[in-house]
């Protein structure tokens, strides 16, 4: 046993050393400096205990960023999940051109976020395609464009995010659908179950683990939303999210690494609690089914 264990440690060392050096150490070290007033330029710092965390809780910019993050998460995940499931059900059926639609739906999720964000910035602009269509339909739109208005900017980015993410989660749901044994559908058909009844009684319960996976990873991703905010609005027009706040505080204007680390840990705790809650709730529900 011993002779087996030693070479395995050696063989895995490239990965484990990298993991320790570039993941465990920075994460642990950032926890430490979140209790300091680390000044990046001079490298000087003093231990200030929980002062950064206390300041965060009364910082209007952080609270606004947190609020926007929750709006983003709460506003995108239900739509992304439902649309992805519906699209998976549609492309799971036999019809002509099915491969094309599967590819077309999946395409946005493998396109660069920066590229998509730049395209949507133009689409959302005053005189852009979406504004023109809205005008033709008689819908009133913000005078300077969707991204230059506090009431529409964040929701516009969320809509783009749903459009971009849905194909990826569709693929995961599709894999889940393929894993459901055909015998169950055949038995339901023999027993005269309607397609709706089959969906609610067979498809959905058996997709529960997949749905849980989709919701959890989508939540984590959405809590970390950054690129689209950075490219489309630079956090202006009430669109700054938690990660954008961390970036701004830590790496741009202020270079307050200790404060930014504290914000990162608050976000980490929120994501962890949220993920645990999702596991517990969805597992209970799954058991009830």
């Amino acid at each position: 046993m011993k002779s087996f264990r030693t070479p395995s440690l050696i063989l895995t060392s490239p990965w484990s050393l990298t993991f320790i050096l570039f993941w465990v150490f920075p994460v642990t070290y950032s926890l430490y400096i979140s209790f300091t007033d680390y000044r990046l330029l001079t490298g000087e710092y003093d231990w200030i205990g929980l002062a950064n965390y206390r300041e965060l809780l009364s910082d209007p910019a952080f609270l606004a960023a947190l609020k926007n993050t929750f709006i983003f998460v709460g506003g995108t995940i239900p739509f992304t999940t439902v649309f992805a499931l519906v699209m998976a059900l549609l492309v799971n059926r036999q019809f002509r051109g099915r491969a094309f639609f599967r590819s077309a739906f999946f395409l946005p999720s493998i396109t660069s976020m920066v590229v998509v964000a730049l395209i949507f910035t133009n689409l959302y602009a005053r005189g852009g395609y979406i504004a023109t269509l809205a005008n033709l339909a008689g819908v009133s739109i913000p005078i300077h464009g969707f991204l230059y208005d506090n009431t529409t900017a964040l929701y516009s980015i969320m809509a783009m995010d749903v459009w971009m993410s849905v194909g990826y989660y569709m693929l995961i749901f599709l894999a889940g659908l393929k894993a459901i044994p055909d015998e169950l559908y055949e038995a339901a058909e023999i027993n005269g179950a309607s397609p709706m009844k089959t969906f609610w009684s067979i498809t959905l319960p058996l997709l529960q683990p997949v749905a849980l996976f989709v919701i959890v990873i989508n939540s984590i991703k959405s809590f970390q939303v950054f690129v689209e905010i950075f490219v489309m609005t630079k956090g202006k027009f009430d669109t700054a999210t938690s990660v954008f706040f961390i970036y701004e505080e830590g790496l741009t204007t202020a270079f307050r690494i200790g404060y930014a680390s504290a914000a990162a840990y608050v976000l980490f705790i929120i994501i962890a609690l949220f993920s645990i809650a999702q596991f517990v709730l969805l597992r209970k529900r799954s058991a009830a089914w």
Partner: protein
Amino acid sequence: MRQLIVVIALSVLLGGSAIQAQTTIEWWQFWTDPSIKPTMSAMVDEFERQNPGIQVNVTDLTWANGHEKIVLAFASGSAPDVVELGSDWIAQLADAGKLYDLTPHADSLRQKYQGWSMATYQDKVWAQPWILGTRVLYFNRDLIRRAGLDSDFIPLSWNELRGAAEKIQALDPDIYGWGSNTAEKHRLYKKFMPFFWSARGRMFSEDGRYCVVSSQQAVKALEYYKHLHDSCGYVANQRGIEDAFLDGKIGFILSGDWLLKRIELEKRSIDFGTSTMPGPGLTFGTGRKVAAGFRSETYPGKSFMGGEYLAISSASEHPDAALKLISFITSDENQIKFCKANRSANPSSRTAQTDEYFQNNPHLRTFVMQLHLSTHPPVDPDWVYMETELEQAVEKVLFENAPPGETLRQLQKTITELRKK
């Protein structure tokens, strides 16, 4: 014996070359555009030819993340010997003790170069001015004519600017009088401050002790800017505003010399003019012709001044070689070469500014004139925070209809608190 002589000769030669060992200096800079890159390389080659013991390694930075890279390099002790800095960054790095004191070098050059004040912090000079920059008023002559104004109309006062912009705005729903920046970091305040300074607004009292940003003049400037924004503003980021201007959709915009370069390189056929900032006080009738050399107490208005500076890291092991490079790059001859290649309008060298290249081109002449009528933000390590607060205040007024007076009073309070920390 002959062998001994050969050995001694070789020893002397090898010893000599060891004494003249290459000094390598690192230079980080931002000029990566294909139009300027060959000129930059040629300048470095020429410097190395003139200084055989010094080799220069040039690293290109981008404006997207150059500031972060510079700060991280200084923080990690891996800063280059020579670094190009935006004027806003100098005080922050000097305050942290990261820059080499250039005061003795600057003392003999005070009259020769413009822009020392932006590099002076706590009575010491921390960087050498290289290429400066300001903003001037661009206008579309075609739209001015269509709006019924004289073809050689130039707005001298705020009233004239507003009147002309509103007339242009009334031409067509897709035509706008004024290019108004959206909430865009590092850009919006540079558009508002020319009006603020033109109205004689000040960030701080003369002794620098008190923030006075909510003065009556400042409120007047913000109200005027808000009026332009609301009544005839095409709201977009700087690039979007310039695109729309070049497409003939906007009457007046504020922009820098890069737009001249763009117009030339993209072969745009727009009929445009440039002028110094209008002043707040004059109320001449519209369509007035500008007399050559016209001046008054309130015309032209002030504009924003910034610039590119060359500094030496305090940790540099070769400050003398670094200073040689800086002196070479910022020489009159090289500044003119640089400006010609990059179509830049504002060399820091006063001698270079008088070169016929700038004086024979009316647009470049406008920039040189405006530069001498420009003001820069306070040289303060905390300016980055103040800038953020200032931009947020302007955003609130422009986009959330917050009252200018109350918003500036709140800004004054915030900046005062910030300075107390």
